[in-house]
């Protein structure tokens, strides 16, 4: 096993010292650990983000394995525990914490207080709207990176990143939801997750918001 310093030096060699210093002092909350959140968390952990806090209330199901970062041996376990286990194997020095809870308008102001960056990665449209509204209202300095529209097999280039207002970044095609019965495929969900992870890395490395 390599030491923390050895990993740090390897990442500095890849990413540059200034980027890595910012990444290692960053702290991100990932809300929802499905196709978006599990992939965003892994991308951030691999980049060397210092601390991740995972939120989800669900357990790993067979139907998740088409696009979510879980293994058959993890079926039935809370996604928070299963993903924390995987992340600690990928990035043993990332500080991972998790809360198994359904985030609501009532508990978001206390549970998400203090995170400079929050990733919205829920599946239901109402839950997405509630998180976005509550976070932007409750926390005047927090950046929120949300996923919106990645169902179906539409063209990949329709998945985009755009900033709305001062602190909201939206990733997705904005229109392709599961409501119409459209399926979710790993390739298109990953595109959206990659947009979200990249937006977060850009915030961490370019805006010095930690």
């Amino acid at each position, binding site marked *: 096993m390599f030491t923390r310093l050895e990993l740090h030096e390897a990442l500095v060699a890849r990413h540059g010292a200034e980027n890595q210093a910012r990444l290692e002092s960053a702290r991100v909350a990932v809300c929802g650990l499905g196709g978006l959140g599990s992939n965003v968390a892994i991308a951030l952990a691999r980049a060397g983000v210092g601390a991740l806090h995972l939120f989800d209330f669900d357990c790993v199901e067979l139907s998740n394995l088409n696009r979510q970062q879980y293994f058959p041996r993890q079926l039935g376990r809370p996604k928070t525990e299963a993903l924390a286990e995987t992340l600690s194997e990928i990035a043993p020095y990332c500080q991972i914490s998790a809360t198994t809870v359904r985030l609501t308008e009532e508990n978001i102001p206390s549970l998400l207080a203090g995170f400079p960056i929050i990733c919205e990665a829920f599946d239901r*449209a*109402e839950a997405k709207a509630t998180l976005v*509204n509550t976070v932007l209202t409750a926390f005047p300095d927090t950046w929120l990176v*949300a996923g919106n529209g990645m169902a179906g097999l539409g063209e990949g280039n329709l998945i985009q990143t755009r900033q709305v207002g*001062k602190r909201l970044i939206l990733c997705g095609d904005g229109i392709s939801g599961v409501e119409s019965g459209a399926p979710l495929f790993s390739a298109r*969900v990953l595109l959206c997750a990659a947009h979200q992870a990249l937006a977060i890395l850009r915030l961490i490395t370019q805006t010095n918001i930690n």
Partner: protein
Amino acid sequence: MVTINGKQYEVSGKTIAAYLTEAKYDLQRVAVELNGEIVSKGKLAETIMQDGDVMEVVSFVGGG
């Protein structure tokens, strides 16, 4: 005139909630920014749009 999602509409004087309902948005699935600031759910029915306002309505769809 009020600019909503980049297009101009003759809706000044209306509340945001009245506009959203007329435009067939589902109020449970939207986030609204008026002149760059979030408008909380509770304020949608009491905030009146004025000439020159710039509003963004984000309508969420499911999937993740």
